[in-house]
């Protein structure tokens, strides 16, 4: 091995680290005091983690959701271990129930702000508070409350601002800001933030977050219709994800590469990437992601005039949504297929498909207004009065009913 002083080599070579470190004298007294502070703080955090067991899960289980804000007064929660557990609880609920995730994140920020200074070194306390505000920002983002999410990010950043050595934490907080900008179509602001986060994660060898930042940055470029550049970034992320064995990132990147290549007109390679994504999601047991990927592939292919390939994916998505018990989603796929069939003059098959949807929706006791709309569509097809536009109008109406229900639930 060739020895050198560059940081990449120093990270790998113990001999060179020792040689490089030996050139600087050290201030014994001050360093000893700092060493003691570090060891004491590390021991404290470890001890708290050991003592906390599942305190947060238990307290949340035993307390009605409406009373969660009052839990901030509990001394048992005012420590780093409890905050870490609160963070885990937020993460678990982000997809499933973002309103509960937000309630827990609010509790966590309340707890973090109440911890008096002096218990932890100021830098560690700042990390604890910043992480709580980052979780709150994430929950707000999931609820599409973007301005509040950006305010929460700003508070997290303020906590970290006095410290130089928290660039990793800063990037984790700022990643939420980048995602908010991506979701609110502020692409010019999102891109530099996500690129910077990606660099910081790479330098800290945080491969998973590095992949996530890469996927987000590629998505920004995709949304800006810069498909070639997005493809380059996704390809780099895919290579990294393969090197680190991160199957989930590989699946998502394959899916995204499928989108980019479809827009670039390379349908054969797009198809390979979609197939890879589906295979990997299947291997991971992400059975809801499989039909979503198939439906996404179908939409983008049909959008680019590749009706046959798109139809094949739509049929697969309908089958897989049905297998997963997602009857409504399977019905939406059927309506998309019906629209294509009507457009091609295949009315008999379109009619049979709408009848299947009626039967499935009825058996699943879905909204009667949705069932009535599909019955009307079937009758229109029977009377030869349905166009592809009619089918799409019914599709949009049924989808709006579902959104209405979700809106009430939230």
């Amino acid at each position: 091995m060739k020895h050198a002083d560059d940081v990449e080599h120093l990270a790998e070579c113990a001999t060179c680290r020792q040689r490089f470190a030996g050139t600087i004298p050290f201030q014994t007294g001050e360093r000893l005091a700092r060493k003691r502070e570090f060891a004491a703080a590390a021991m404290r955090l470890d001890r708290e983690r050991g003592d906390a067991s599942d305190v947060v899960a238990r307290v949340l289980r035993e307390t009605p959701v409406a009373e969660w804000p009052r839990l901030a007064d509990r001394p048992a929660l005012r420590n780093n271990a409890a905050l870490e557990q609160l963070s885990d609880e937020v993460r678990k609920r982000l997809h499933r129930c973002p309103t509960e995730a937000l309630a827990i994140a609010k509790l966590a920020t309340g707890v973090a702000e109440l911890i008096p200074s002096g218990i932890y070194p100021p830098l560690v306390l700042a990390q604890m508070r910043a992480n709580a505000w980052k979780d709150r920002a994430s929950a707000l983002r999931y609820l599409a409350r973007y301005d509040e999410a950006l305010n929460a990010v700003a508070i997290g950043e303020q906590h970290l601002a006095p410290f130089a050595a928290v660039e990793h934490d800063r990037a984790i907080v700022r990643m939420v800001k980048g995602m908010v900008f991506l979701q609110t179509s502020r692409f010019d602001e999102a891109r530099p933030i996500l690129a910077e986060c990606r660099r910081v994660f790479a330098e800290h060898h945080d491969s998973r977050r590095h992949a996530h930042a890469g996927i987000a940055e590629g998505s920004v470029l995709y949304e800006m219709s810069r498909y070639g550049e997005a493809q380059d970034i996704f390809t780099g992320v895919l290579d990294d994800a393969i090197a680190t064995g991160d199957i989930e990132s590989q699946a998502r990147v394959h899916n995204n590469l499928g989108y980019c290549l479809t827009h670039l007109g390379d349908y054969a390679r797009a198809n390979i990437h979609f197939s890879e994504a589906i295979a990997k999601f299947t291997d991971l047991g992400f059975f809801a992601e499989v039909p979503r990927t198939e439906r996404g592939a179908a939409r983008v292919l049909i959008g680019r005039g590749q009706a046959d390939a798109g139809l094949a994916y739509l049929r697969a998505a309908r089958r897989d949504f049905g297998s997963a018990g997602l009857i409504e989603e399977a019905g939406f796929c059927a309506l998309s297929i019906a629209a294509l069939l009507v457009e091609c003059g295949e009315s008999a098959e379109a009619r049979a498909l709408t009848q299947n949807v009626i039967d499935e929706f009825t058996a699943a006791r879905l909204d009667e207004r949705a069932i009535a709309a599909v019955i009307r569509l079937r009758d229109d097809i029977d009377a030869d009065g349905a166009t592809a536009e009619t089918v799409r109008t019914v599709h949009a109406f049924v989808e709006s009913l579902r959104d209405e229900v979700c809106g009430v639930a939230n």
Partner: protein
Amino acid sequence: MIPPPPTPSVVESLPVLVRADNALPVIDAEEFARLYEANCGLLVSLAVRKFQVPFGDAEGLAHEVFLSYIKRRDEIRELHKWMIGAICNASRHYWRQHSRNIDQLDIEAASTHADPISAHVTDWLTARIAAGEALAGLTPRYRHILRLRYYEGYSVPEIAEELGVTAKYAQKLVTKCLRRAEEFFNASKPGKEK
């Protein structure tokens, strides 16, 4: 007519890197202290030598890196890589912050003081020009030999190997080159006829 293409999927949550059954390896205070001792010098050296952070501030930055490590300990897979990344980023952040605190240059005041970089320029400029002219007067081979000996730091046996001659002859060549350069140098000094 056709529904718009959906947004490609983005990983929505940022899960921790490694949290194996929530159990961290048990480390006692002495081991934490040893970890500090074993790595503090490296971090300070990196800040000082790679980023020219003043020594006292570099110690502070290294300490901050250790403190920030405590909170992330359960998700860091490769300690040295993470710490080196952290100190490099901390040093860059240090300079970003530090440069903001530098006072604006007062042009009028600056014009009344000599620039420290060029204050003693007259002491060496003439000799430097003469040396340049002396070297320019040599043949390319002689210039190459002097460059190897006095710029690249080759030893006489290494020059011999480079030129494919004996060490004794290489020594003769170096002496000869020096003599020729000296002749040109003396001839190019101000007040002398070339």
